């Protein structure tokens, strides 16, 4: 019963993705009345980054200039999260006392 359920759910997923792959519909086309992925309605922010990124942060890689310059707080948070994770693992796994060896 459980195996049957797993097989049925996998089949439904595969059928769904195959349907989307064969018949993509409006995917990737410019939006007319409704919104489509890749063509957002408001593009002011994207246009600003794309046109000013090379001038203000003097780097060719727009992604890096967003991650480290325009949205540096985000990266600071990521680095802090990594630091906190390492601190947690170290506090769990380190040797507690010298005489445990």
């Amino acid at each position, binding site marked *: 019963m459980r195996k049957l359920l797993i097989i049925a759910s996998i089949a439904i997923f595969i059928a769904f993705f195959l349907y989307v792959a064969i018949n993509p519909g409006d995917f990737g086309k410019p939006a007319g009345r409704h919104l489509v992925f890749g063509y957002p309605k408001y593009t002011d922010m994207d246009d600003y980054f794309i046109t000013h990124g090379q001038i203000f*942060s003097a*780097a060719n890689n727009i992604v890096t200039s967003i991650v480290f310059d325009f949205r540096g707080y985000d990266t*600071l948070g*990521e680095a802090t999260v990594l630091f906190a994770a*390492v601190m947690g693992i170290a506090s769990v796994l380190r040797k507690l006392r010298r005489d445990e060896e």
Partner: protein
Amino acid sequence: MKMSKIVRTQSGFLYPFILIFGLYIVIHGHLTPGGGFQGGAVIATGFALVVVAYEYKDVRKWITANRLSLAEVTGLLAFIITAYLGLGSTFFRNWLANSGSIFGSRVPPGINPGNLNTGGVLPVMNLAVGLEVLGGLGVIIVYMLNYLKRGEESAG
């Protein structure tokens, strides 16, 4: 714990290339896809290859948890200090860009081949974050291997 001679020879041959590739990803973070996080993870993978292929007690002399955590703390501090140095106008200001000094060359708008001497504080922050990520992942690997070894000893 020690792997076979084939694995050890291969890892001894491969790990310098992995480290150089990781360094390349970190340094070219403002020109090509990649950056500090990805390059740091690649470098930590090279260390992990050495630590796993050889016995940990053979490499304990130069891969120590203290050195790796020092690298991590240094990277995080360098990142925050670089961010604070832009505090003349705002936090995280790109104060080196277009200044003409190190990493301060101008970038022509549009498609260009790219120059390593550009980017302002971006390369500095990439190096700092790469150092931090390599230290953090290395510390995790070393602590977990230590823990595994202690578990084996206590089990018999």
